[in-house]
């Protein structure tokens, strides 16, 4: 299942921010590129050293400024380039996402995926799937900042 940007699947073009760790997921994204694996252009990647660098404030900031979905990608647990980073990221995001959900903010808009440097295909598939989920949810109303709407 691929969402080809030229196809007519949806009129709604979401803004999706993907935080990728430099060692696994960003490399995975590059591999997806090397293999010409298509995923929506709505996904824009921000390169970080590690998934444990993702501060909840970045995620909320993205939603504030108009993002419709935020996904965090890191090395598989156990494979972190910094040995333990993604374990902390996992706990933090568990608490944060649960808190967002508790406030009634659509849970589908946030996601954590472990993508290794060898998993270009998984990266593309993940992004396609996430984009589709976000498109289904429609524009982010509950955690957006009205002032940032165009």
């Amino acid at each position, binding site marked *: 299942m691929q969402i080809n940007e030229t196809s007519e699947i949806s009129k709604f073009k979401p803004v999706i921010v993907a935080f990728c760790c430099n060692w696994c997921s960003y490399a995975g994204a590059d591999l997806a590129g090397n293999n010409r694996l298509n995923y929506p252009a709505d996904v824009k990647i921000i390169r970080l050293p590690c998934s444990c660098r993702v501060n909840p404030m970045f995620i909320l900031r993205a939603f504030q*400024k*108009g993002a419709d979905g935020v996904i965090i990608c890191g090395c598989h647990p156990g494979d972190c380039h910094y040995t333990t980073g993604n374990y902390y990221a996992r706990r933090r995001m568990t608490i944060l996402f649960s808190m967002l959900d508790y406030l009634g903010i659509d849970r589908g808009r946030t996601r954590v995926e472990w993508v290794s440097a060898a998993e270009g295909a998984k990266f593309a598939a993940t992004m396609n799937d996430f984009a589709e989920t976000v498109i289904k949810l429609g524009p982010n109303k509950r955690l957006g*900042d009205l*002032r*940032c709407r*165009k």
Partner: protein
Amino acid sequence: MRKLSLFNISKLYEMISDNKQLYLPVDNGAGQAGYKKWEYGMTMSQALNTVRSAKDFFFPQTENLVDFKMNGKNIEIIDTRSEAEDFVLFGVRACDARSFSILDKVFLSDPVDSFYKSRREHGTVITLSCTRPEETCFCTAFGIDPSNPEGDISSWIEDGDIYFEAITDKGAVLMDSFQSILDEADESAVETQKTETRKIMAKLPLADFNLDGFGDAALLEKFNSPKWAELSRTCLGCGTCTFVCPTCQCYDICDFDTGHEVKRFRCWDSCMYSDFTKMAHGNPRVTQMEKFRQRFMHKLVYFPANNNGEYGCVGCGRCLAKCPISMNIAKVAKKLGDN
């Protein structure tokens, strides 16, 4: 003076909100009252007063001033002001009513604050007399008569009827708009209530509250008093007192980058906050003691000094009820006053 049976009050609400926005105190579900725009079925709160004061309507917590748009490298300035609609504030108590005249002294004296001015012009205030004041009330100390509130129209509730009296022309005009449902009434109907309330006021714990010795002559003596340190020692530096206060009028101007434009807005500031009066070189008030002192010196010394003796407080008692550590103007006045 004219009256209306409370049974028909919602008819009155309807008539007013037909061509104006009507706001009145309603219970907010958290056991307290707050001003809400009237919709059919809404009834006025029984609470003595609202948590947030009525100043919000003329001096809102945040207010957009102007937008900047960047096209490439040139900046376009957009005035975002929209023509304000007429509105009516119903059920304002005497203390809040007086607070408007205090705010006027700040915002309407040169240079005139056009944002505030426009709101004042579009707003009509219907005040309501107090009959069961709280132990935290001390408005009388500032020459306010809660039984006979100021405003554009004053009103009294007395056994099943509500009595109105237009004070200002604006009030008269508004009152004309619902004359049809009012009946004739005479002053005597509310006289007993007035005397009753005044009696109660005299019995209140804070009835003896006075500000003897706070004149501007005492400025330096008060400013240098060693008691400030002790009074402010456990102050948390939160903004509760300033934000529930009907007369606090300090604000900060900030920019917010929305991504496609910059919004310049002003929002309430609090002298209790760490960055209050922070300037490029730093902050002249560094300790909480200095910030704390500023608030009370302003209300009790500086303000009267610049406004022929009128204090920057109306004795509504909100800060007494809401301060997390119950350190408030009553205690300060007591400690620093002559008595």
